[in-house]
C-alpha cells in the first residue's frame, strides 16, 4: 500500500519533470533559418538571430554546461573564474561559521532566558525589536565596524540565524513540563545536572526545530550577502555570471543553491528526529 503509493508518487514526479523539461526544450529550441544574411554577418549575430534560437538556454545547454562544471569543480583560474565547488565551499564555510557562532550564543542565552522569568521579561523588548530587522540591513554597519567584507558576511549569517534558535530555545526551556522538573526536584538533582538531564532533553526537539529554521534562513541570506560583498561564494558567482550574461551558469547556480539548501535542511531534520521522543 505505502510502497505502491511511493511508486505512484515517484512516477508522477518523473512525469512532471519530463513535462517541464520538454516544454522548456520546445520553448527555447531553434526554429530554423529565419533570415538569410552573409555568413560573416551571421557569425557575428549568433544563433539567436539566424536560427531563431531563444536567448534563454535550453535544458540540453544547461545539462552540457553542468556536466562541464561537475567534471572540474575545483579549478581556479583567478578571481573571476573559479570552479563551482570552490564557490559553494566558500558559501558553506561562511554559513557554517556564522551559524555555529549563533548556536554557541543562542542556546546558552536561550537557556538562561527560559529559566529566568526576570531575564525573559527584561530582554523581550530587545528581542522583539531586533528580530524583524532584515539581516542585510546590518551589512553597512558590519562593513564599517569590522572593515572586512568576508567577516561581515559571516556576521550577517550570525545575526539572521540567532533569532529562531534563541526564541525556540527560550520557548522549549520555559515549556518543559512541570512534573519533570518536580521529579528532578524530589530527587534533589542540582541546577546544572537538572539543566543537562531534564531540561535539555525535554527542550531538544523544540531547540532543533529552531536550528532547522535558522539554517534555512542562513542559506537564503548568504546568497544575497555574497552578491553585496562580492569576491567569492555562490551568491557572487550568480551575480558575476549575470554580468557575463551567462544565463546557463545562473540557472546551474540556482539549481545547486536549491540542492545544497535541501541537504542542509535534511541534515537538521535527521538531528531533530534523533532527539525527538514519543510520548
Amino acid at each position, binding site marked *: 500500500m505505502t510502497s505502491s503509493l511511493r511508486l505512484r508518487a515517484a512516477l508522477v514526479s518523473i512525469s512532471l519533470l519530463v513535462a517541464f523539461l520538454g516544454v522548456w526544450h520546445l520553448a527555447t529550441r531553434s526554429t530554423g533559418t529565419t533570415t538569410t544574411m552573409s555568413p560573416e554577418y551571421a557569425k557575428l549575430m549568433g544563433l539567436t538571430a539566424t536560427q531563431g534560437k531563444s536567448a534563454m538556454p535550453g535544458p540540453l545547454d544547461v545539462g552540457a554546461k553542468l556536466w562541464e562544471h561537475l567534471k572540474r569543480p575545483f579549478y581556479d583560474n583567478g578571481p573571476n573564474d573559479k570552479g563551482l565547488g570552490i564557490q559553494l565551499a566558500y558559501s558553506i564555510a561562511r554559513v557554517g561559521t556564522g551559524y555555529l557562532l549563533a548556536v554557541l550564543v543562542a542556546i546558552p542565552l536561550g537557556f538562561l532566558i527560559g529559566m529566568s522569568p526576570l531575564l525573559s521579561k527584561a530582554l523581550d523588548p530587545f528581542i522583539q525589536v531586533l528580530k524583524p530587522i532584515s539581516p542585510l540591513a546590518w551589512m553597512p554597519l558590519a562593513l564599517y565596524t569590522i572593515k572586512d567584507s568576508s567577516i561581515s558576511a559571516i556576521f550577517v549569517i550570525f545575526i539572521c540565524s540567532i533569532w529562531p534558535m534563541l526564541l525556540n530555545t527560550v520557548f522549549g526551556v520555559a515549556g518543559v513540563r512541570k512534573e519533570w522538573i518536580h521529579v528532578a526536584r524530589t*530527587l*534533589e538533582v542540582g541546577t546544572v545536572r537538572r539543566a543537562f538531564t531534564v531540561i535539555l532533553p525535554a527542550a531538544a526537539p523544540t531547540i532543533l526545530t529552531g536550528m532547522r529554521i535558522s539554517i534555512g534562513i542562513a542559506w537564503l541570506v548568504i546568497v544575497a550577502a555574497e552578491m553585496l560583498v562580492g569576491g567569492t561564494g555562490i551568491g557572487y558567482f550568480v551575480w558575476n555570471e549575470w554580468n557575463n550574461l551567462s544565463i546557463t551558469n545562473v540557472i546551474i547556480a540556482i539549481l545547486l543553491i536549491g540542492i545544497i539548501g535541501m541537504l542542509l535542511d535534511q541534515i537538521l531534520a535527521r538531528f531533530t528526529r534523533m532527539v525527538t521522543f*514519543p510520548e
Partner: protein
Amino acid sequence: MSDKFISIEAIAKRYPGADGATTTVFENLWLSMARGEFACVIGHSGCGKTTVLNILAGLDVPSEGAVIVDGQAISGTSLDRAVIFQSHALLPWRTVLGNVAYAVSSKWRSWDRAKVKAHAQTFIDLVGLTGSEHKRPSELSGGMKQRVGIARALSITPKMMLMDEPFSALDALTRGTLQDEVRRICLETGQTAFMITHDVDEAIYLADKIFLMTNGPGAVLAEVVENPLPRDRGRTDLHRHPLYYALRNHIIDFLVTRSKTFAAETPGHDPRNVPLVQIGKPGLTIASDAKPEPSRETSWPGQARA
C-alpha cells in the same frame, strides 16, 4: 500516637487573589502520622489536598506553619520523601531502566554504572516489570507506566512515600492489581505512606487512617477515621467484614453532606485535636449509624422506587 514520625503543625496556604484580597485554601492545619502508617486523605477537589502533599514533598512552601519529619523541620525536597505522581511523570526519552536508574544515581552519586543498574533492576523486578527494562514509556500501558513510577519512588529507599491520586487515571482492573502491589510493598518494607484519593474503597483497602477534609476555600481537617478492618485484609472479602459498610457509609456521608456543612455545624472544632473516629468501638456516636434516611435513596428514571 506517641511516635509522631510526621507532624504537620499549623500550616496555612494563601494565594493573593484579585484586587488585593487573599484566598485562604486552608489554615491552622494540624496532622500527624506514626512511622509505618498508611494514611489516605479524602476530600473534594479544591480542598487543598494536593497542596498539603506538595508541602510535605517540599515542592511547595506553606504560607505559615511547619512540617516536621523524623524530628526535623523540612526545607525543600528530599530524597527521604519519594513522590508518586498522578501522571506518572516518567522521562519519555529514557527507558524503564533509565528512569529508575536516574533516581538511583541521584541518591547514590558515587555508585558506578553496574551498581546503579543492579539496584534499579531489583526494583523493576519488585513491581513486576522484568523483561520491559529497555522499553520506552511510550511503549508501556498506563498501568505499567505507573509501576515504573512506583519502582522509581521505591528505588531511593525513602522514609516515606507521597502519592497524589496515583491510580486515578487507570482502569478499574489495573487499579486493583496496583493497589495490591502497593499494599504488599508498603507492608513488606514498612513504608510510611501518605496518599490522596477520591476513591473511598481504595482508602478503605489501603489506609490505616483516613483523613477527611472539608470543602475549600478555608478547608479544615474534620476527622481522622481509624480503619477498623484487620491489617491482613484481602481485597476479595473486604466487603464482608461487619464494619465495612459502617465505615464506608461514614465516609460517603461525610463527602456527600458533612463536608459542606461541617464548619457551620461544628463551631467548637479544634484543629489541633481533630476527633479520632473509631468505628465499631462502643461509646462513640457515629454519624453513619444515626439515621439512614430511606427518602434519600435515588430513583432512576423508568424504575420504580424499591
